[in-house]
């Protein structure tokens, strides 16, 4: 890991990127890292493309990275992963939700949602595809989809040494705690399974 690790979380307004960034930042601070987190509010939140950044290390200066600066890109929506790829470092990791949210041109029937994005991501990048929507439903409610992706991020970033379940418990409403914990574990498992498959492919 470099001195400072930069994580870029992207999605569509309303998907809960900010909650995930908050849980992530909280756990990293408790673990003794210097942390900066940057989010954008306002106009784009109305169903537009949104991004949040979390950077951590011994000492962090800028709260954001530019093009080619992110170690890990976490996309809550498939096309948003493709949109933000220029911000990924060469050799960086991608965690992408297998979920298509049609943008306005598609809703209006003026364009078709791009095909084969996941195949491109798998072929060209170190990409982990997570069906977070299905895993969230299995965990109890589709509303915890963001925490499934968080689990996958923790696994991919090698941050498993932090007691994330305690951080989640101190962040979410008690009524949704069980679903959030289940979602977190499902996300971790999904990313772990992917890593095992890759190792197998490399040794075979």
């Amino acid at each position, binding site marked *: 890991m470099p001195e400072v690790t930069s994580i870029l979380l992207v999605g*569509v*307004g309303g998907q809960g990127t900010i909650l995930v960034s908050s849980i992530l*930042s*909280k756990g990293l*601070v408790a673990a003794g890292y*210097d*942390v*900066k*987190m*940057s*989010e*954008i*509010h*306002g*106009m*784009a*939140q*109305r*169903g*537009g*493309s949104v991004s949040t950044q979390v950077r951590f290390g011994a000492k*962090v*200066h*800028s*709260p*954001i*990275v*530019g*093009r*080619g*600066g992110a170690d890990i890109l976490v996309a809550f929506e498939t*096309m*948003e992963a*493709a*949109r933000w*790829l*220029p911000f*990924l470092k*060469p050799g960086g990791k991608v965690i992408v939700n297998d979920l298509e949210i*049609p*943008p*306005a*041109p*598609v*809703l*209006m*029937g003026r*364009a*078709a*949602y*791009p095909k084969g*994005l996941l195949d*491109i*991501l798998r072929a*060209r990048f170190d990409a982990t595809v997570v069906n977070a929507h299905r895993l969230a439903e299995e965990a109890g409610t*589709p509303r915890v989809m963001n925490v499934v992706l968080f689990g996958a991020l923790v696994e991919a970033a090698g941050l498993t040494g932090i007691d994330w379940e305690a951080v989640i418990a101190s962040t979410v409403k008690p009524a949704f705690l069980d679903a959030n914990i289940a979602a977190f574990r499902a996300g971790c498992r999904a990313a772990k399974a992917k890593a095992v498959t890759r190792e197998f492919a490399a040794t075979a």
Partner: protein
Amino acid sequence: MPELLTGNEALARGAYEAGVSYASAYPGTPSTEILETFATYKDVIAEWAPNEKVALECAIGASISGARAFAAMKMVGVNVAADPLFSFSYSGVNGGLVLVTADDPGQHSSQNEQDNRYYAPFAKVPMLEPSDSQEAKDMAVAAFEISETFDVPVLFRMTTRVCHSKSLVTLGTRRTPVRKPYVRNVAKYELVPGNARQLRAKLGAKLKRLAEYSETTPFNFIEWNGTETGIITSGMGYQHAREVFGDEASYLKLGFTWPLPVEKIRQFAARVRTLYVIEELEPYLEDEIRRLGISCIGKDKLPGIFEFDPAIVGAALRGKAETPQEPVPVLPRPPLLCAGCPHRGFFVELGKIARKRHAMIAGDIGCYALGAGPPLDAQDLCICMGSAPSIAHGAQKVFGKFGEATRVVATLGDSTFFHTGMNSILNLVYNKSNAIVCVLDNRITGMTGQQEHPGTGQTLQGDATAEIDIAAVVRAFGLTHVRTINPNDLFEVRETLKWAFELDEPSVIITRWPCRLKKLNAGDQARYAHRYRRLAVRNDLCNGCRECLKIGCPAISFDNIKDKARVDAETCVGCEVCAQVCGSDAFVDGELEHA
């Protein structure tokens, strides 16, 4: 244990620690959370004002009465508040007074990208510029001391990235709130020309002392890392510079940026071989530095527009271009009105009648600016807060003068109505035009994230209060043609617009329905106890005409294979606008359909 706070939260905390008793603001991205945070502290008064001028004037009143006070606003709000600012800088303060300007490099959520640092020399007030949350907190505490020590209001300049980035902050404790006695002092506060001329002359001496302070304040500090490269920077530019140059450059980091520390700048510049000036937006520091006869590298290499990040600074100054990933084609994802937004039904009908009658539609600042884009296409322009009725008036007068039949419609929100829109409507009545004003009353300030205003019946700190009736206000102005309608009822919207277009006199249509994101209060519950039922499309009835796609609802998409519309059950909230544009009654009660 340090806490992770946004710059906005840290600033509010600093004001609290400084013993501030009063704060006022009008919400505006990226400044909104400053007052929302301050309002959570005990033993303070925190208020939403109808506009920024009122907010600053209220804070001035609190200062003159002897308490510490501040006003917060986004950068364009300072234009509205500029009138009291430019004069109160002459008076000076009793309790410390701070004006927070939150600038928006990159225009994430703004209609322009003005660099409000120029307000400091223009209004002759000292300026502080933090670069992270700890500085925002520490400088907020210091700002009130500076204000009282030098008897001047202080400009506190934030930017979006400082406002909305979280970093660690070590908290302090609240000092006893400052309570100075109010003493009548006409020579100081009564700005008739005789007094103001005296104060103008005195201001020069204050600024001289502030220039001396600028040389010694710890907010203007040097980090020495050799003489090869020197960087003068402020605000977020400092953080990006540190990221790019690390310990390979020396830094003169400026936090107190007006008056500038001229001697410190000279000494720093003299000791380094290459001098860079790294600042977002305008060459504010650079022009001053060049005026001192110092040569430097700045805007000749760095962009003068939009927000910086480390990659932009690195590419401009170190030739460190990133290795671009091969692009993957994507579609744009513009923001949309939410599913169930009460503006949608209104814009559907307004767009239709405006196209048919070649009407002009003057819009305003708020979520409803999203009515301008496809497929609604129901707004022609949007310039600044509260401007729709006045722009409509001016245009309507000209169309009339040249004998053209074009009618002009103004659309503005409820919060915008109270901001400055009501003044514009007053003018429209007084100067007799027949423009049609539509107040899209969603019972809250929507775009900035659900802030109370004079029409909601509740204050920032949660107290019940008078609920100002928009219809009664415009009737008091002398408007007789006033109707309040439900924007989700397309027939009612259509008939009301027709009625207004037939009138030769001005009219006001109030579309009253709460924002779909609003947490309904008791009054709303009683009035809008509407049973939202999610809809579904019956495939046997849908004929694939795509009429429902023209309302731009994020819950409706089209299945090209089946040639049918479909409703996303998780997104739909049941406003039933789609059902009213459907010619084949294909939208049915989703709960029954899925049962």
